[in-house]
């Protein structure tokens, strides 16, 4: 099986799934961090634990701010990541 994730930039704090990643699958062989969710291609997983308010870095640039602390391997998406641009423009799940 090929590597499940890709580190797009050395300073990124998220890894991006390059195929469906299974719950519990090891995503960083060096640290042993495992995925805390089953996610499809293109989704983000925390490279290490991050506090609430942390700036998420992908492709070497900020893409938003965490509204909750996350554990290593956590799925990072609209449930815990806010746009730092204009809140109204970011995608939000319907309540």
């Amino acid at each position: 099986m090929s590597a499940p994730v890709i580190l797009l930039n050395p300073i990124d704090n998220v890894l991006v799934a390059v195929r469906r990643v299974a719950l519990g699958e090891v995503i960083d062989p060096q640290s042993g961090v495992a995925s805390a969710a089953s996610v499809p291609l293109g989704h983000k997983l925390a490279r290490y634990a991050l506090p609430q308010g942390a700036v998420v870095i992908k492709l070497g640039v900020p893409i938003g701010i965490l509204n909750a602390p996350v554990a290593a391997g956590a799925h990072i998406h609209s449930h815990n990541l806010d746009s730092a641009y204009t809140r109204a423009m970011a995608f939000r799940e319907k309540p």
Partner: protein
Amino acid sequence: MITGWLRADGRKGIRNVVAVAYLVECAHHVARRVVEASADPHVHLIGFPGCYPNEYAAKVMRAIATHPNVGGVVLVSLGCESFDRTALAEAVLASGRPCEVLVIQHEGGTAATIAAGRAAVARVRAAADATARVPMALDELVVATICGGSDGTSGITANPAVGLAFDRLVAAGATCLFEETGELIGCETIMADRAITPELGAEIEACVAKAEAYYRTLGLGSFAMGNAEGGLTTIEEKSMGAYAKSGASPICGIVKPGDVPPRGGLYLLDVVPDGEVRFGFPNISDNAEIVELIACGAHLTLFTTGRGSVVGSAISPVIKVCANPDTARHLMADMDINAGRILLGEATLQDVGDEIFDRVLAVAGGAESVSEALGHREFILTYKAFSPIGPACLPRGGRA
């Protein structure tokens, strides 16, 4: 080593195209028949369909008719359209290129003009073939990039790989162009920080703000459900995927369609019209943007696609970089580079970036890109309105 065709303005072309241009839709059929009759893959059809005058269209047609890849031009006019054929012909002749003008109403109609056009193309081709061929350095090359049919893979494979190729090209002295400010919403402060002067940085931010307002007036959001399903969470994250094509070099200026940047460095093409929304969408399809990049002097265009576009272009070859490994399996016969291999662990971003760089040199050296070999010669030009760029937009000079 690239061998280019030397033009009178000092620029060099990687192709020696004879462009046949219709100046209104009424002349399109005749011009197309003239191109078909030539049976020469380097005779290309270009044109503007509108009957009413438009300064932008005139500027883009002039820029393309005097593009370094063009060796000569045949203009096909109906006769009563408002396009100023005399001014365009004079600009082409003044650039040292052969130019002939056919007016359907004077020639005696469709068949007579097609026959006259075939003879005109043969004369212009012969004159263009006499153009001197000289060595061309990498710092004389202009490379553009665009994305179309994007999906969740575009921003993590093909786009950053093009960014790496752009960094190598800029480091080697080439001129690189990226575009679509409407897809860069949320990146403006990061882009502004890369500007070579603070004044240029302010222009970049204003340029994206203009795009945001323009798209808002049209009622188009930039973020769709499909983006979230693909794993994108925020507008700035989506934009960063498109922005990754620009690489990491300093941004040396902003140009608008038809402006020619100075030699060397990375430039942003502002494709969103100025003033109130007048003619609808800024660009109705990917080829409308490719034409604008060519009007700024692009010798070739790197086109990244996830879903799988098949287009090429008249005048300047298009190199297609496929982001998605599944798309590559279905459509590899239309792709030059398979960046989807990154997701399969078969190549790194750097490997694909290097492959793109090598492919740019090969196509500049005369190798056909895949879309070029398949005969793709798309061209579309519509109505738009622009104000000239501001004084801070090109700190190192250039031709607006």
